[in-house]
């Protein structure tokens, strides 16, 4: 029996360490000694034996450095930084985002192993390699249950397509022991490549809650994760952005995938063991998925049960293989295929689940179990383990997000069948929400205008057919289930277009900017009686510019009525009084210029359109909103009439325009070969580009005084995407 650690003497602790750790620990002790020695040396005379220690420590320091460098250099070149453009579905709509993570090149063909939660909901991937090349990648496969995914680099984009990619070699994570030194590599907080050093704190960590040792980790209501592996816990610093990066031993072997950390627990990182990762990656590369057996039961450790052996069947899936074989919740499994099984602790559950999942699909598993005092045998024929959560898509013109219903989702929601499309969320103010009754989250759509809706793909096809038709139907009859009741509602499909903002009523206007000349200012200027409004600017291309008005004139009367501002609170007085007059009428301004009073007759013109009222266009392919140039834009930016184009008023976050470097306030001058004069030209150009669906469009924009060429690469693919969403956990 092992003694508690506190009872060991230091030497015994040292001996209990694995050999590699012992060597390293020796090195570290000497390094610490060496680090403190010079300080001591300054205060005292150096003894000969102390000098020898310093020399030895220096040597060991160099050895340690060399060891870490060697290990680092075996994996570091294979480390990649991954930028992901994501598409999330919530509130009845899709929204783009950007995230970053890390990955490791595991094959010469360019396969990159990373976390599922890095790649999930990814629409586009860009990987930055060790030599700083940025290369596109595509998703090969993902396995949410282990939180792993494989991408493949687009080798044709390499500067030298024939180059041999650096590849990290897997080590045997089963050999890891507590106290082993490890390095975590990745891109924390999206910073470029970094390495941190630590030791293994635990090799079989499970993250089950204390109060529920059969609990499962989930990304969301439907998607489980981490059920087949125990985690390698270590104290090498990892942060968001490290996710998917390699955990490396001092032999330079890839022995884990850094996946999780904790904000509150200090130095705790959790990595998926390399052995699990290697097997999953092989399946993903070969099959694009991980084929697993499913028995339809969940297990619970017996620690708190009072039982002496076996593992408790915590629940049984209705209609699943275990139930078909006669098992019931509460049974205690004693043997599997003749081998005794006892699961005392939560740490022992994942390996057993993995063992069961690893049976070839369709295998017969002989389970010996105890029910009350009887011992019986069940032969369970395994089924294929299917996806937890279905694909999802946003139906923008109808205003909801729909999800395919998997068997597990149907079970969890007590749905009788998996056909139909689950309404995941509804956009406020959308046709789905304005319908009476409105669609709501949790409804299951079964038919539209009497045509059955079986699955998401069919619904997308139907949606495209309806929305692409020349004429939209006034209403669509939706049949849906809500809590077991069959409902009907009418949805009025809405064209996916934004309306121009409403115009302000035109009023009379004089094209000057003014400031009030208040009493104190007038006194200071030596003209205490000359209150009024001083012209600070005469707008070019206005009737005022054609008149005799000049900057510096003080307007003291309007049509004979004195203008006497009492303070800045009257700053708007002049233009307010002008607005009460009629457009096209004439007004007489009494002005003071160089102490002399004179009258200027001026014709009143219409107030000009403000930027808020300008015609605008929201292009959802490029995710950009532009508007016409207004008079005030020209004035503020000092643009002559020969400058034409449309102003970018907004680009969506992580949208294709933003990713292509187009910014708010840019003036779009040209797109591909189309010169853009105004919003009409822009709409025509975008219609043509949308029909062509090019790989990229070149936006020539004016930014400040310089032109910029921005290359925008829109995604023309359909809007459906794989499932999965954040559960709010901190995942590294």
């Amino acid at each position, binding site marked *: 029996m092992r003694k508690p650690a506190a009872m060991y003497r230091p030497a015994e602790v040292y001996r209990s360490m694995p050999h590699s750790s012992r060597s390293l620990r020796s090195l570290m002790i000497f390094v610490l000694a060496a680090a403190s020695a010079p300080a001591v040396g300054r205060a005292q005379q150096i003894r000969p034996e102390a000098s020898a220690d310093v020399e030895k420590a220096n040597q060991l320091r160099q050895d340690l450095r060399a060891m870490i460098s060697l290990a680092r250099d075996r994996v570091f070149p294979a480390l990649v930084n991954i930028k992901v453009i994501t598409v999330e579905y919530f509130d009845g*709509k899709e929204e783009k985002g950007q995230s970053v993570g890390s990955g490791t090149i595991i094959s010469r063909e360019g396969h990159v192993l990373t976390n599922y939660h890095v790649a999930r909901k990814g629409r586009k991937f860009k990987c930055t390699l060790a030599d700083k090349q940025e290369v596109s990648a595509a998703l090969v496969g993902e396995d949410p249950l282990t939180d792993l995914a494989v991408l493949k680099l687009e080798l044709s984009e390499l500067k030298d397509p024939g180059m041999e990619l650096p590849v990290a070699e897997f080590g045997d994570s089963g050999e890891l022991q507590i106290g082993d030194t490890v390095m975590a590599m990745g891109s924390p907080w999206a910073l470029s490549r970094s390495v941190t050093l630590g030791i293994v704190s635990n090799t079989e960590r499970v993250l089950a809650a204390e109060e529920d040792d059969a609990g499962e980790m989930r990304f969301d209501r439907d998607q489980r994760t981490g059920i087949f592996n125990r985690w390698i816990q270590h104290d090498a610093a990892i942060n968001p952005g490290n996710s998917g990066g390699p955990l490396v031993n001092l032999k330079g072997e890839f022995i884990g995938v850094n996946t999780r950390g904790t904000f509150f627990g200090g130095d705790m990182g959790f990595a998926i063991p390399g052995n699990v990762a290697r097997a999953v990656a092989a399946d993903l590369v070969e099959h694009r998925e991980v084929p697993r057996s499913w028995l339809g039961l969940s297990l619970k450790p017996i620690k708190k049960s009072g039982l002496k052996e076996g593992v408790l069947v915590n629940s049984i899936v209705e209609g699943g293989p275990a139930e078909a074989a006669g098992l019931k919740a509460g049974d205690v499994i004693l043997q599997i295929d003749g081998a005794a099984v006892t699961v005392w602790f939560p740490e022992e559950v994942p390996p057993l689940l993995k063992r069961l999942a690893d049976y070839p699909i369709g295998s017969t598993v002989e389970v010996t179990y105890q029910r009350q005092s009887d011992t019986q045998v069940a032969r369970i024929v395994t089924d294929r383990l299917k996806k937890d959560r279905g694909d999802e898509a946003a139906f923008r013109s109808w205003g909801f997000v729909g999800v395919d219903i998997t068997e597990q989702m149907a079970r969890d929601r007590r749905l009788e069948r998996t056909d139909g499309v689950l309404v995941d969320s509804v956009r406020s*103010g959308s046709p789905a929400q304005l319908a009476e009754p409105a669609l709501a989250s949790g409804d299951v759509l079964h038919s539209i205008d009497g045509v059955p809706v079986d699955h998401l793909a069919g619904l997308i096809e139907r949606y495209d057919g309806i929305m692409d038709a020349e004429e939209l139907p006034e209403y669509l009859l939706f049949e849906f289930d809500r809590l077991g009741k069959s409902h009907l509602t009418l949805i009025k499909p809405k064209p996916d277009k*934004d309306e121009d*903002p*409403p115009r302000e*009523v035109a009023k009379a206007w004089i094209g000057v900017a003014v400031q009030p000349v208040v009493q104190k200012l007038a006194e200071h200027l030596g003209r205490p009686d000359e209150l009024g409004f001083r012209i600070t600017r005469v707008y070019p291309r206005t009737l005022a510019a054609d008149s005799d008005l000049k900057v510096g004139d003080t307007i003291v009367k309007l049509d004979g009525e004195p203008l006497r501002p009492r303070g800045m609170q*009257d700053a708007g007085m002049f233009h307010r009084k002008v607005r*009460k007059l009629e457009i096209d009428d004439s007004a007489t301004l009494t002005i003071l210029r160089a102490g002399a009073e004179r009258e200027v007759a001026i014709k009143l013109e219409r107030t000009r359109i403000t930027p808020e009222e300008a015609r605008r266009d929201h292009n959802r392919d490029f995710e950009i909103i532009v508007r016409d140039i207004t008079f005030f834009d020209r004035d503020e930016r000092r643009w002559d009439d020969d400058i034409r184009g449309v102003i970018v008023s907004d680009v969506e976050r992580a949208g294709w325009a933003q990713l292509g470097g187009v910014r708010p306030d840019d003036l779009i001058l040209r797109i591909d070969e189309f010169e853009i004069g105004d919003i009409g030209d822009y709409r025509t150009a975008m219609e043509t580009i949308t029909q062509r669906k090019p790989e990229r469009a070149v936006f020539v924009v004016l930014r400040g005084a310089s032109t910029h060429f921005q290359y925008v690469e829109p995604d023309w693919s359909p809007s459906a995407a794989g499932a999965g969403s954040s559960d709010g956990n901190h995942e590294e």
Partner: protein
Amino acid sequence: MGHLGGRATMFVAAMCWWSLGALVPVSAADDKDEFARFLRDKEPPLVTVKFVLKVKMGGAMGGMGDQESDTEITGVMIDPKGVVLCSNTQLGGFAAMMKKFMGRMGGEITATPTDVKVLVGDDVDGVEAELIARDTELDLAWVRIKTPRTEPYAHVDLGEAVKASIGERVFAVHRMDKYFARSAVVAEGRIGGKTSKPRDLYVPAAALAPAMGLPVYTAEGQVIGVMVMQAPDEEDVDADSMAMFGRMSNMQEMMGGFILPAETVDKATRRAMESAEGD
């Protein structure tokens, strides 16, 4: 951000205060017949304007992106061919109001009413309509039914208006929302004062806020003006963002509403119609 968020919160709080003000019960009627007459005579021109308000908030406003909400307000028919007058603030104009209060930062919020419908009488579906013009300065908006019926609509003639005196009793009629069967209700108040800035306005002494955008009548049933919200003109307001807090102290007056004389409304309506034709 935090500072701005605080200001946004204060604005919302003020709006809530205004809404609560709207719940203040009207004073007891001196004459039951008077109220009944108002309901009978003044309800027919009232309509419900339904719309979806699309609000865009920029980063400085919390970056909430697009938000849409299904909304309905009461308007008044002012033309037999289907032109409806309503409160611009209630029809999405609050964004401009916020901009006035929050200076340049407020510019990051835009609100556009879409899918506008007008419900006449006890119609629950509504007919399609469009917002043809708005006057942010006066807090007026004009909605026009796209395909008006051939039979003329009951309407209020703003050209036949009278002036009111301080202390005079005034009345307004508004409709409650769909949860209360859009029933008509009379609100009673008095002219508490007048102001000439930012323009000529009557100041009601009691809350007539439920009738925002709707006509106000004398006891004899003659229209004197329309209830509006008024904020200082942008040019008059300090650019200093901290001045916002000073402005908040005046919000009670602003949110309580003013009566814009019918003459001004009539003139603005003519301009609005000309603008709409011009477009």
